[in-house]
């Protein structure tokens, strides 16, 4: 009797897993299937799960040749990498100073930095746009990088994490004659790896996904980042070329998905860390 109940429970759970799996994966599978169809096949009704006639990589070839897709990709990588490097450096440095030093006005300054997190980007977007315009950075990738190099959230996260590093360790290094920057670089940074990797993942993803700001500051086709290039896809290709649109969509998400599945643990731990600490 007990065994029967256990078997039943397992079966219900398996069915639930399957149902959840279908709901979460179906849109991805449909994208893949559409991208390998010919256009007439993609927009035929009733839709077929598998291509009636396998169209090969024709849609992918169109994405790669008819729009500067590789350029979009490299723009996105350059911007996200630069922003991530900048944020990791500034957040860890400022976070360390707020966690382990005492100075006049420390608490007030830190609270002030935290307060800026409350400001939605939309509120300051116009003055920042004007600033970027005055700095002659409009329509360059600099416009996406420079205003994003420091993050209040990053400073907060690093400070929280670094407070847990034993102060005795830092004092010992000082007595040994290590320079202040040396302590930061050689002792504090290596001990902060979990927080750095969490912050790095978030920053990279946020930059990769950023849409409103690139939409405002980038005009030229070859300057666009991936999301921006993708969003204007439907204007580049015919509205009904869904096979091509889906091929481009898939190509655009593939790099991040690969990284995600290779390092799933880090992603999950990152959110866990920030969720609990935040």
């Amino acid at each position, binding site marked *: 009797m007990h065994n029967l109940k256990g078997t039943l429970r397992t079966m219900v759970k398996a069915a639930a*897993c399957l149902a*959840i*799996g279908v709901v*979460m994966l179906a*849109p*991805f599978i449909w*994208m893949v299937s559409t991208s390998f169809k010919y256009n007439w096949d*993609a*927009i035929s009704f009733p*839709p077929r799960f598998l291509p009636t006639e396998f169209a090969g990589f024709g849609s992918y070839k169109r994405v790669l040749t008819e729009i500067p897709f590789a350029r979009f990709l490299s723009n996105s990588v350059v911007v996200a990498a630069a922003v991530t490097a900048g944020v990791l450096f*500034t957040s860890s*440095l*400022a976070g360390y*100073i707020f966690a*382990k*030093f005492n*100075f006049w006005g420390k608490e007030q*300054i830190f609270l002030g930095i935290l307060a*800026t997190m*409350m*400001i*939605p*980007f939309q*509120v*300051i*977007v*116009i*003055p920042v746009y004007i*600033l970027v315009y005055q700095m002659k950075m409009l329509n360059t990738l600099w416009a996406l990088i420079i205003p994003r190099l*420091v993050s*209040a959230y990053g400073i907060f996260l690093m400070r929280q994490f670094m407070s847990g590093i034993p102060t005795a360790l830092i*004092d010992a290094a*000082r*007595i040994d004659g290590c*320079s*202040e*920057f040396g302590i*930061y670089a050689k002792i504090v940074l290596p001990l902060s790896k979990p927080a750095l990797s969490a912050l790095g993942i978030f920053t990279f993803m946020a930059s*990769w*996904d950023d*849409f*409103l700001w690139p939409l405002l500051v980038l005009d030229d086709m070859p300057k666009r980042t*991936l*999301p921006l290039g993708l*969003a204007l896809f439907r204007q580049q290709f015919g509205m009904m070329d*869904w096979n091509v649109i889906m091929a481009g*969509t898939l190509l*655009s*998400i593939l790099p*991040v*998905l690969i990284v*995600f*599945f290779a390092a*799933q643990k880090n*992603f*999950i731990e990152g*959110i*866990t860390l920030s*969720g*609990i600490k935040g």
Partner: protein
Amino acid sequence: MAEKTGTSRIPGRRRMSSGRAKQVRFIVLGLTPVLLYFLIFSVYPVFSAFKISLHRWGLLDLNRPFIGLTNYLWAFNDPVFWVSLKNTLYYAFYYVLWGTLLGMLLAVFVNSLVEPFVTVMRGVIFMPVVTSMVAVSLMFVWLYQPMYGVLNYLLGFIGLGPFDFLMSTTQVMPSIVAMSVWKSVGYTMVLFLAGLTTIPGELYEAAKVDGASGWQSFLHITLPLLKPTTLFALVTGMIGGFQVFTQIYVMTGGGPGTASRTLVMHIYETGFKFFEMGRASALAFLLFALVLVITMLQLKYLQADFEY
């Protein structure tokens, strides 16, 4: 915050030892650029935006007169503002409601599984979170297609539809909410999974000994102890929900008509399509006020519930 570096005292009692001098130099060199950055890219823009919101400030105007609160009054007298506000509230409310509810349920479910199913299900549910919003929007525009869309085809089997989804003034917002929940539920789930690991297992065992059913344990142990996570999910979800833009821009452009126009879409069009920067800034401050008020209310009322 009480921790002291202590080092300043080690080399003796001179007012400024060479060690402390080095520390001061490190603090100044490290913090000055960061603080300057905040002044330039956060503090100054807030004041500047407020100033702009009090002026007639077209991008190409040579003359930008001070007009007091006229831009705010314009917003209040514009029916499109109220429609955008209504759509934003609708989106934020249902997005947070369903996102939190489903995120919590999925976390409890995944938590009850054994390996390797935990890792697999977590990965599958989290996949859309790492997919860019533009990509997800395009995938769903294709699924939602009224004529060739596979969703209408599938719903036909259970006798529903066909629906116009994004082309219908009544279905467009629910369709966008559904997609957004699908995209972000993995994030909420991982938050709740982290929350679940903080609940000590002994509590469940004690409850079992006392004869509590699984459902009772959930209601009286899991739910109350997940309150901090729930509050975090509600507040961050709501703040994000008020700023919804990308999927609206890609999927509908705010249409049909103004049926899916949100506040940020309204700000975007006012500022960067009609170049009325003064009006756009006023709208942005109204959004800011709304986010602040709702966050405060959430913190006040939900945190009061904390003492259990």
